[in-house]
C-alpha cells in the first residue's frame, strides 16, 4: 500500500512521514545519513578519497601537474581545478553526454568554496615564480546519486586534499628545467577545510537535514550552508518557497552542528588510512 502511494502520490506520503517526525529511511528530521570517508584508495592519483553518505558516494582523485603560469596571472601561485562529474552510471535519470548543468554548477561551487575558505594558500603550489607552478586537477566522480551530492563531494575533496602528497620539485636555473623527485613527497599545509550541510524545506517551516534522492525531488526549497572552522563560507538558498528568518536561523544552527560532526570525521580520517563509520 505504501509502495502504491509512493508511486502515485509521493508528496502526500512524504507529508504523512513528516507529521510523524520520521523519514522513510527511519531517520529523525535533523539526522544525517551514516557517512564513511576513506583516503588513499587510488594509487595512480597523487591524493584520493572516497566518501559515502547513505547511498550517495563520490570518489575524488587529485593529480598534480606542472604548468607555466599565464602572463596575466600572479607568477607565484599555482591553481586548483575541481571538476565534478555526474556520469550516467550514478543514476538512471542521467544520460551519457556532455557535463550537465548540475555538474558544471557544482564544480564551480566547489572552487568557490575552496577559495572562500582560504584553506589552501596557492603560493605553496609555486615551484619557481614565473616558470613552474603546480596545478592540482581534482576530479570527482559521483558513483551513486541518492541526493545531496554537493556535501559529499566537498567532503571527498577536503579529504583528498589532506591525502595529497606533492613530489619534491626544484627549478634548475642554469639548465632552465625542472627536476622532479617523485619518490620524495610532502603533504600540503591546509587551513580549515570547507564542509557543507544541506537542508531541504517542506511547508516553508519543516527542515530536513541531508535530504535523500526522493526528498530532494519533493522539497520546496533547499538551503546549503558551508563552514570552514568557525566562519561561514557559503549560504545558498536559490529559489523555491520563501523562508522566514527564524527558519533560516535554524538552518544555520543545524548546519553548524553537522559541520562539526563532519570535521571530527575528517580529523579521525587524517590520522589513519581508513576511518570507521561516523554519524
Amino acid at each position, binding site marked *: 500500500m505504501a509502495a502504491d502511494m509512493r508511486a502515485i502520490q509521493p508528496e502526500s506520503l512524504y507529508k504523512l512521514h513528516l507529521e510523524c517526525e520520521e523519514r522513510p529511511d527511519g531517520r529523525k528530521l535533523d539526522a544525517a545519513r551514516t557517512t564513511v570517508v576513506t583516503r588513499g584508495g587510488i594509487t*595512480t*592519483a597523487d591524493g584520493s578519497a572516497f566518501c559515502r553518505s547513505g*547511498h550517495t558516494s563520490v570518489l575524488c582523485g587529485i593529480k598534480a601537474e606542472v604548468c607555466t603560469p599565464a602572463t596575466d596571472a600572479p607568477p607565484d601561485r599555482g591553481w586548483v581545478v575541481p*571538476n565534478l562529474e555526474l*556520469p550516467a*552510471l550514478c543514476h538512471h535519470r542521467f544520460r551519457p553526454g*556532455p557535463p550537465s548543468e548540475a555538474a558544471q554548477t557544482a564544480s564551480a561551487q566547489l572552487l568557490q568554496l575552496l577559495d572562500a575558505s582560504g584553506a589552501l594558500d596557492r603560493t605553496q603550489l609555486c615551484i619557481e615564480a614565473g616558470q613552474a607552478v603546480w596545478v592540482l*586537477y581534482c576530479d570527482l566522480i559521483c558513483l*551513486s546519486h*541518492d541526493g545531496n551530492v554537493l556535501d559529499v563531494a566537498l567532503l571527498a575533496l577536503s579529504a583528498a586534499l589532506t591525502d595529497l602528497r606533492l613530489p619534491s620539485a626544484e627549478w634548475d636555473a642554469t639548465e632552465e628545467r625542472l627536476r622532479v623527485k617523485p619518490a620524495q613527497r610532502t603533504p600540503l599545509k591546509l587551513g580549515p577545510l570547507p564542509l557543507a550541510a544541506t537542508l531541504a524545506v517542506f511547508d516553508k517551516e519543516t527542515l530536513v537535514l541531508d535530504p535523500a534522492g526522493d526528498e530532494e525531488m519533493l522539497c520546496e526549497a533547499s538551503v546549503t550552508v558551508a563552514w570552514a572552522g568557525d566562519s561561514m563560507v557559503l549560504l545558498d538558498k536559490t529559489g523555491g518557497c520563501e523562508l522566514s528568518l527564524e527558519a533560516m536561523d535554524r538552518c544555520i544552527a543545524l548546519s553548524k552542528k553537522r559541520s562539526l560532526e563532519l570535521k571530527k570525521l575528517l580529523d579521525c580520517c587524517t590520522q589513519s588510512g581508513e576511518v570507521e563509520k561516523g554519524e
Partner: protein
Amino acid sequence: MELLSDQGLRVDGRRAHELRNVECRLGVFGRADGSAYLEQGNTRVLATVYGPHEARAAQRRHDVASINCQYRQAVFSGWERGRRAGGGGDRRAQELGALLQNTLESVVLVELYPRSQIDVYVQVLQADGGTYATCVNAATLALIDAGVALRDYVCACSASVLRDQPLVDLNSLETSGAPELTAALLPRSGRLPLLEMSQRFHVDKLGELLDVAETACRDVHTILNRAVRRHVSARSSEK
C-alpha cells in the same frame, strides 16, 4: 628491467600462467539495478547496470532488447593524467563501448526483453593493464546482479608471448613491452565472443596463445562463479 627473469618470475613475482589477485563485490550500489566492483591486481573497475527498462524511441527494437554500453576511464586512473572526456569520451572510449556492446549482445538473452533497453556503464577507476578484460568481467557480474538473463558468463583475460613464453593477465608494464591479446570466453560452450589484438605478432604462436588465454579465462570463470554464489547465498540468508 626484465619482464621475465631467468627463474621464470615476472616483475610482480608471478609465474607466467598466474592471474593477478582478484577481488570482487556484487551489489555495491543499492540504487542501481545491478552493480559490481572488480579488482584484478591494481586495475579497478566499477560496472553498473540499469534495466531492462523502456527503450527510448530511437533505440527501441520490436523483437529484442537493445544494449547500450558506455566505457569511461577516470582522468586519474592512469600513470599519466588522461585527456579530459568531452561528450561521450574520446574515440578509444567509444570504440571500447561498442566492443563491449558486441560482446554482451552475444550472451544476453535479448529475445526475452523486446522493446526494452539495458544500459551497462563501466567506469575504470584505476588502470594497470588488462583494463578491457576487467571491464568485461565486471559487466558480466553487474548483469548477473541485475538479474538479466544470460546464456553464460563472459570471462575475459589478456595474454601475450614473451621470448617464447606465454604470459597471462598482463599489467601495464608488460603491456608496453609485449603484444597483448584480449580474449573473452563463454565457458560452457567454449566459444570466443571477443578476440582483440592490435600489435605485430607471429602467426605460428597464435595457437599456443589462444590455448593459454582460454585456460586463463576458465580460471577467471572459477573465481567469478565463486563470488556470485557467495553473494547469492549471503543475500538469501539475509531474508
